C-alpha cells in the first residue's frame, strides 16, 4: 500500500478509537432522551467524574503497592462505574424528577445548573488544572514498512475496542432480553401507558440514568487512560460531541448512537489529517447541521409523527 493510504488507515483506526468512546457516552443521552424526551445536560460531567475516579483509584492502588495491571484496571472500572452511577442517580433525583411534567425548558436549565455545579465542585476539590497520569498501557503492534510509514495499533486502542464491544453486547442483551430492558423499551414507546400497566416508571427512568452514567464512566476510564490527562472541563466538549453523535445516528436509537459515534470519530480524525486540528470541532458541528438538514430524524431514527 502506498504511504498515503497507510496514513489514512492510521487515521481511520484513531478515529474509530475515539468514536467508540463517543458512542459509549452517546448511549446515555439517547436512552434518557428516548424515555423522557429531555437532554441530560449533566451527562458530560458524569463522564468527567468517571475519569477523575479512575485516576484516584489508580493512584491509590499504586501507592498501596499493587502493581498488577489487570487488577488495577478492573478495580478502577468497577469503582468508577459504581460512583458515576451514584452521581447519575443523584442528578436524576435532584435535577429531573421534581421537575417532571413542567415546561420542557425548566429541567434543561436545572440540568445546565447541575452541570456547572459539578464542574466547579470537582474543580474546587481536585484543582482546576490538568491532572496527568503516566501511561499505564504502552506498546502496540506496527504494520507496514518502517522506512516510509508504519501503521500502529496500540494496546490501549485494542483495549478500547474490546471493552466497547463487550459493553455494547451486554447492553443490547440487557435491553432485548431482560425484564427491566423490556420495561425500558415500553417506557420509550409510551411512558404514560406503561405506567398504567403497573410498571414503576420512576424506577425505569432512574435505571436509564444509572446505565447511562455507568457507560459514561467506562468511557471516562478509557479516554482518561488514552489521553493520560483530565481536567474539570473535559466533560463539556465530550458531552457536546457525544450528543452530536446521538443526534447524528437518530436520537432514541441505541444502534444509531453507536453508528453516530463512529462516524463522528472518523470524520474528526480525517479532518485532523488534512486541516489544523483546531478545526475538527467545526467540522463535527458542521456535519451535524448538514445531516439534520437532509435527514432531521438522524440516520437510524424514526421520523417523528406529529400528534394533534
Amino acid at each position, binding site marked *: 500500500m502506498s504511504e498515503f493510504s497507510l496514513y489514512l488507515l492510521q487515521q481511520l483506526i484513531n478515529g474509530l478509537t475515539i468514536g467508540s468512546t463517543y458512542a459509549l457516552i452517546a448511549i446515555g443521552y439517547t436512552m434518557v432522551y428516548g424515555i423522557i424526551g429531555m437532554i441530560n445536560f449533566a451527562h458530560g460531567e458524569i463522564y468527567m467524574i468517571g475519569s477523575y475516579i479512575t485516576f484516584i483509584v489508580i493512584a491509590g492502588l499504586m501507592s498501596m503497592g499493587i502493581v498488577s495491571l489487570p487488577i488495577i484496571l478492573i478495580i478502577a472500572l468497577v469503582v468508577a462505574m459504581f460512583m458515576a452511577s451514584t452521581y447519575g442517580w443523584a442528578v436524576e433525583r435532584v435535577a429531573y424528577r421534581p421537575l417532571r411534567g413542567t415546561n420542557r425548558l425548566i429541567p*434543561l436549565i436545572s440540568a445546565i445548573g447541575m*452541570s*456547572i455545579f459539578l464542574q466547579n465542585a470537582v474543580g474546587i476539590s481536585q*484543582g482546576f488544572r490538568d491532572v496527568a497520569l503516566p501511561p499505564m498501557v504502552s506498546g502496540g503492534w506496527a504494520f507496514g514498512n518502517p522506512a516510509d510509514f508504519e501503521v500502529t495499533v496500540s494496546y490501549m486502542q485494542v483495549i478500547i475496542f474490546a471493552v466497547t464491544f463487550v459493553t455494547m453486547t451486554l447492553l443490547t442483551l440487557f435491553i432485548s432480553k431482560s425484564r427491566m430492558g423490556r420495561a425500558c423499551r415500553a417506557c420509550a414507546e409510551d411512558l404514560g401507558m406503561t405506567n398504567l400497566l403497573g410498571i414503576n416508571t420512576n424506577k425505569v427512568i432512574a435505571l436509564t440514568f444509572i446505565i447511562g452514567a455507568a457507560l459514561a464512566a467506562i468511557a471516562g476510564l478509557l479516554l482518561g487512560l488514552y489521553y493520560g490527562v483530565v481536567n474539570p472541563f473535559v466533560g463539556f466538549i465530550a458531552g457536546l460531541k457525544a450528543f452530536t453523535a446521538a443526534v447524528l445516528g437518530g436520537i432514541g436509537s441505541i444502534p444509531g448512537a453507536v453508528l453516530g459515534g463512529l462516524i463522528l470519530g472518523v470524520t474528526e480524525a480525517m479532518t485532523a489529517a488534512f486541516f489544523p486540528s483546531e478545526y475538527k470541532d467545526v467540522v463535527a458541528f458542521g456535519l451535524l447541521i448538514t445531516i439534520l438538514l437532509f435527514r*432531521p430524524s438522524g440516520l437510524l431514527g424514526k421520523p417523528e409523527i406529529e400528534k394533534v
Partner: protein
Amino acid sequence: MTTNKFYNAIFAAGITLILACLMIGVKLDTSGTQLAVKGATTAQWTWIGGGIAIVFLSQLFTNQIDALFRMIPKPSISTMLPEEKKMATLKPWLIAGAIVIMVIWPFMVSRGSVDLATLTLIYIMLGLGLNIVVGLAGLLDLGFVAFYAVGAYTYALLSQYFGLSFWVCLPISAGMAALFGFILGFPVLRLRGDYLAIVTLGFGEIIRILLNNWTEVTGGPSGISGIAKPTLFGLEFTRKAKGGEDAMTFHDYFNLDYSSSYKVIFLYLIAILLVCIVIYVINRLMRMPIGRAWEALREDEIACRSLGLNRTAIKLSAFTLGASTAGFAGAFFSARQGFISPESFIFIESAIILAIVVLGGMGSQMGIILAAIVMTILPELAREFSEYRMLLFGLLMVLMMRWRPDGLIPTKRPQLELKQ
C-alpha cells in the same frame, strides 16, 4: 410508614456519603512526580459527617419541614401592584420617574457602581434579545452568545481597519448579527426544539473556535485591543484628542477639568438609551401581528399552521430580531471594554443569559430586568468567595427551577376561560 421513612433516610445518607467521598474525601496530589492520593483532614470529615446528618434528618422529617415551609406566606407581586385601571394612568409617570432616576443616579455614586450598572444594562439587553427567541417564540437557543460575539467583533474590526465610529457601527453590528441569525436560522428552524438547541450550541462553539483560530483577522486568543470609545457628536472622552486637527475633547469643549468618570457616566447613559430603545421596539413588536404570531406559534404550532400562518417566516423573524439585539449589545460591549477576546464569548455566557430569561419568567420584560440585576450584582457581592462563585451560581439555577419555575415575575397574559 415510619420504617419506610427511616429506610429512605438511611439510603439518602448513604448516597450522600458516596457522593462526598470524591468531592471532599480524597484529593489527587500532583505536587510530586508520581500521582498520589491524599485523604481528607479530620475537619473535612467532620463537615462530611455534618452534611450526612443534615440529609438524614431532613429525609426523616420531610413532612414536618414541608408543613413548616407552607406556613411562610408566599409574596405575590401581582397583589402588591395597584389595580389595573389605576395602573394604566400611573404607568407613564412611573416610567418617566424611573428614567429620570436612572439618569441622575450615576452623578451621585462611585465610579465602580456606575460601571457595574453599565454591565447590568448589557445583560438586560441580551436578556431582552434572548427573550424574543426563547420566551416569546419558544425556540430554545443555547448559542446566543455567538451573535453577541458577531456584534462585538463587527464593531471592533470596523473600527480597527476602517476607523468607523461607534454610532455608524452600531446599526451595522446589529445588521451583521441579524444576517448571521438569518443564515443559521433559515436551514435549522425547521427542526424540532431539542435539535435546535444543540445546533445553536454547536454554532456558538463554531464561532468561538473560528475567532480563536483566524489569527490574521481576529487576533486569535489575544483578541483585539485599543477599540475606539464612543464619542458625543465627535467629542472625545480622552485626556487629549486623538482624532486629528479639529478633534476636541469633551472637557475642553465645555471648559471642565478632565475627569475619567465622565467617560464612565457617558457610557452608562448610552447603555440606558440603548436599553430604552430595545424595550420600546420590543414592546411595539409584541403588540404587532408578528409579535402575536410568535406567542401563538409557541402555544400551538399545528393550530397556527392551520390558520395559515407561515411558520418559517415567523420563527425566522424572531430569531433574526433576537440576534440583532445581541449584536447591538455586542457592539456596545466592545466599545465599553476597549478590548475583546474569544474568552468573553464562551458557553457559560449563553447559560447566564438563558438563566436570566428563565429566572425572570419567560416572556416578562420586567422580570428579565430584575433577573439581570440579580444575576450581575449577586456575583459581585460574592466576590469574597470568588472560588465558589460559579458553584453557587449552578446551585442557584437548580434551586430556582425547583422553587420558582415560573420565574421571579411570571408573565400575566390576558385570558378568557369558557365556563361550562
